[in-house]
C-alpha cells in the first residue's frame, strides 16, 4: 500500500475514446474512463503521470510518457493539453492597470487572448528564474516561457507583480 505503484508500460493501452475521453486497458482490465494528473506539471510534465479512476483511486503512475506505445502517448498528450490548458504567451500586446485590475491582451501559441487579473498577490507565479505563470481572475493560466523574450516595458511591469 505504501509503495508507489508504477504501471507496467508494456501492458498499458491508453486510447482517446470516440467521445473524446481517455480509456485505459491494463492487461485484462478495461477502464472506460480515466483521469490523468501530473505530479510535476511545471518542471517535468512528461514524468510521473498519475492515472486515476474518475473521482476515485489511483490506478498507478506512469514513470515517463516515452515508455508508452505511440498511440497511448498521443492519447495522453492530447488529454493533458486540454486538462492543463495553458496558452504560452509570445507577446504582450497591451496591458492596462485600472482600479486594481489589469486588463491584458496577449498573443499566445493558441491565438490572441484577453483576460483580466486582479490585484498583485497571487497573480504572477515565478516557476524558475525566467519562466512565469500569470493566473487570471477565474483561475486560467498563461505561461511565459522566457521573460527575456518580452519587450522591456512588459518585463518591467511584470517585475512589479512578482
Amino acid at each position, binding site marked *: 500500500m505504501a509503495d508507489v505503484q508504477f504501471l507496467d508500460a508494456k501492458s498499458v493501452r491508453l486510447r482517446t*475514446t*470516440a*467521445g*473524446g*475521453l481517455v480509456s485505459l486497458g491494463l492487461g485484462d482490465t478495461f477502464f*472506460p*474512463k480515466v483521469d490523468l494528473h501530473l505530479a510535476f*506539471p511545471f518542471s517535468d510534465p512528461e514524468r510521473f503521470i498519475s492515472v486515476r479512476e474518475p*473521482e476515485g483511486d489511483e490506478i498507478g503512475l506512469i514513470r515517463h510518457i516515452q515508455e508508452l506505445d505511440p498511440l497511448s502517448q498521443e492519447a495522453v498528450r492530447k488529454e493533458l493539453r*486540454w*486538462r*492543463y*490548458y*495553458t496558452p504560452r504567451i509570445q507577446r504582450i500586446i497591451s496591458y492596462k492597470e*485600472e*482600479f*486594481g*485590475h489589469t*486588463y491584458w491582451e496577449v498573443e499566445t501559441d*493558441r*491565438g490572441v487572448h484577453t483576460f*483580466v487579473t*486582479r*490585484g*498583485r*498577490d*497571487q497573480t504572477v507565479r515565478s516557476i524558475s528564474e525566467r519562466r512565469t505563470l500569470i493566473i*487570471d*481572475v*477565474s*483561475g*486560467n*493560466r498563461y505561461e511565459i516561457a522566457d521573460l527575456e523574450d518580452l519587450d522591456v516595458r512588459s518585463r*518591467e*511591469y511584470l*517585475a*512589479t507583480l*512578482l
Partner: protein
Amino acid sequence: MDDLLSIQGDLGGLKQVLTYQDGVLTWKEGENTRSWQEEELETVKLHHYVGSLTINAKLKDGQELVLLRGSQGLARQYQMFAQTINNRLQGKDDRAYAKEVADRCPKCQRYYADPARPICLRCLDRRSLSKRVLGLAPPYLRQIALMILLMLASSLVGLISPFLGGRIFFDEVLDSAGRYAGRIGQVVLAMFLAQLVTLFLSIWQGRVNSRVSARIVFDLKTQVFTAMQRLSLKFYNNQQTGSLMTRVNNDATHLQAFFHDGLPFFIVNSMRLVGIVAVLLAMDWQLALYVLIPVPLIVLGTAKLHPLLWRLYTRRFRALSRLNAVVNDSLGGVRVVKAFGTEHEEIQRFSRNNQRVFAVNREVGQMSSTVFPALSYLMSLGALVIWGVGGSRVLWGDLTFGTLITFTGYLGMLYGPLDFMTRIVDWWSSSMNSAQRIFEVIDSNELLWTPEPGEIVPMPRVKGSIAAQDVTFGYEEGKPVLEDISFTVEPGEMIGIVGRSGAGKSTLINLISRLYDPTAGIIFLDGVDLRYVDQKDLRRQVGMVLQDTFLFRGTVFENIAYGRTDASYEEVVQAARIANAHDFITKLPDGYETVLGQRNVDLSGGEKQRISIARVILHDPEILILDEATASIDTETEQLVQEALERLVRGRTTFAIAHRLSTLRQADRLFVLDRGKLVEVGSHQELLKKRGIYYKLFTTQRDALSHIGVAG
C-alpha cells in the same frame, strides 16, 4: 416552445456551440452537427480541469462524451446550463435555474473582470463613488467649513509675504521716492506679523483637520467591522474576498491619508496656484507669461517620471514583504529549522531575498538622486529666465526692482503646488479604489438567505429533532461536496458521523448549524425549514465543541460566560465543574480571573477544550455538535474530556465527528459518508455485520492501532 439555451466553447480556436431546446441537445462545430433526444441522455455534467472546463454528456447506453471545452470563467454559465438540462431530465422544476446569468456589464457589454463579482469597474459610477466618500463628511460639515476657511485665510496671508518682501520693501521702502521710504522697522514688523498669522492659522487648521479625518476613518472602520460581523461564513471562505478583508485595514488608513493630507493640500494648493497666477498677471502680465514657460515642461516631466518611480517603489515594497515573509517563516518554524539542522539553508534563503531588496534599493536610490536634482534644476531654469528677462527690463527702467524680487518669490511658491497637482490624480484614483473595496465589504450581500419578517418562525424552545431531505451542497459552483443526503434524527439521539477525510463530514454539520444553506434540499428542525427559524433562537440552541478551541483574550470567567454575559459566579463554576475544568482553574494563580491569551498563561490542549466545554454547558443547547473534540488531546487528559463530553451529551441531540471510531461507541447511530453521499446508517454492531464501508474503516483502524500498541 421552451427558450433556447446556448453555451459556447472558447478554447484553442474551436467554435463549438451547444444548444438545448424542447428536449433536444444539439452540438455544432462549423458544418458538423450532432443531436440527442432527451430520452437518450442520462446526465450532463460540468468537469473542472486544471486549466479548462468540459461539459460531458452521459448517454443511457453508457457512453460518455466531451461536448464542449471552455475557459474557467465560464464555470457559472456552464453549470447553469448543465443544471437546467438535468432538472428537466429528472422532471424537476427548473425555474430556479432559468434566470439569465449576468456575466457582462449591461452598460458597456464588457465581461465582468470577476464573474463572481458583478461590478463593471469601467462603468462604475465614479461620481457617485466620490460622492459617497465625501458623503462621509456631513456630520462634520461645520468643522470642514472651518477648515476650508482657515486654509483660505492662510493661503491669502501666505500670498502677502513675497509682496511685502519684494515690491513694498524694495520699491516703497528702500526707494527714497517710495510711499513708506525708510520705514524699515514697520515693514519688517508687518512681515513678522504675516508670518506669525500664517503659523497660527496653519496650526489651527492642522488640528481641526486631524480631528475630522481621524473621526471619518474611525466611523468607516466601525462600519466595516459591523458589516463583517453580519456576513455569512461563505464570505470569509471565498479566498478572493478573504484577501479583500486583510486589505480593508490598509485601505481605511489609505483613505485617512487622503482625507488628512490629500484633500486639504489639494484645496490649499489649487487656491495658491490660482492666487499666484492671478497676482503675477496683475503685476506684469508679460513677465508672468515668461514664468509660465517652463510649467508644461515640469508637468510633463513629473508625469513621465512618476510611473517610473512608482514601479520601482512597488518592486521595493514587494521585495521587502517577501523578505519579511522569509523572516516570519523561519522564526515561526524555528523548531523545525533546529530539528532538521537547516540554519545554514535558512541563512542562504534570507540572503538571497536580502540581495533582491538591496538591488532594488540601490536602483531606487540612484534613480531618485538623479531625478529630483534634475527636476529642481529645471525649476531653477525658470528663475534664470526671470532674472534674465526681468533684469534687462529693470535696466531699461520699465520694471521696478521690487517687482522682480516679488516675481522670483512667487516663482518659488509656484512649483511646489504644481508638483503636487501632477500627483493628485493618481492619489485620487487610488484612494477611490480603496474606498471601493471598503464599500464592497459594507455593501456585500453574502448573507444567508433571510425570509420576510412575517415568515420567521420563533422557536424559543426546541425538542431537537433534525431531518434532512435531498440535501445537496457545494462551496463552489458545480463541485458538490454533499449530494442527496436525507435522514431523520430523533430528539436526544446521538449520531456519530464517520467517513474518510474529505467525505463531507464537517460540511454536513456546517449545514445542520446553518453556517451555510443547502444548494438544494431542506434541513428541518422540529419539522420547520431551518431557513425560517429565527436565527437568534437557533444560535441559542446549537452548541459546538470544535477541535481547535478558540479562546478570546480575556479572563477564564469571561471565556466561559461568552455569549451569556448575565451568568452568575455559581452558574459558571457549576459549568466548569461539570466540564472537569474547575480543579485546574482554581489552581491557576488568578483562578477564574486568570487572563488568557497572555504569554505566561499556557493552557494545555485538554484544558482549553474543557473551558470550551464549560462554555457550551453554560449555553445549555438542545442540539450539540462535536467536531473532533478529542482529537488534539493526550490520552491522559482525554479521559477527563471524554467524561465531560459524556455529561454534556446526555439528553441533547448530538452530532459527533471523530476520527478515532472508538470514541463514538456511545453513539446511538452512525452515519457513514463516502464521497459526499450518505452510504450507511446504523448502530456500530449493525454496521459491522453489514461488512460495508464502516466495517472496512473500523477494522483497518483497529489493526493499525493494535499494531502500534494502542488499544482500539
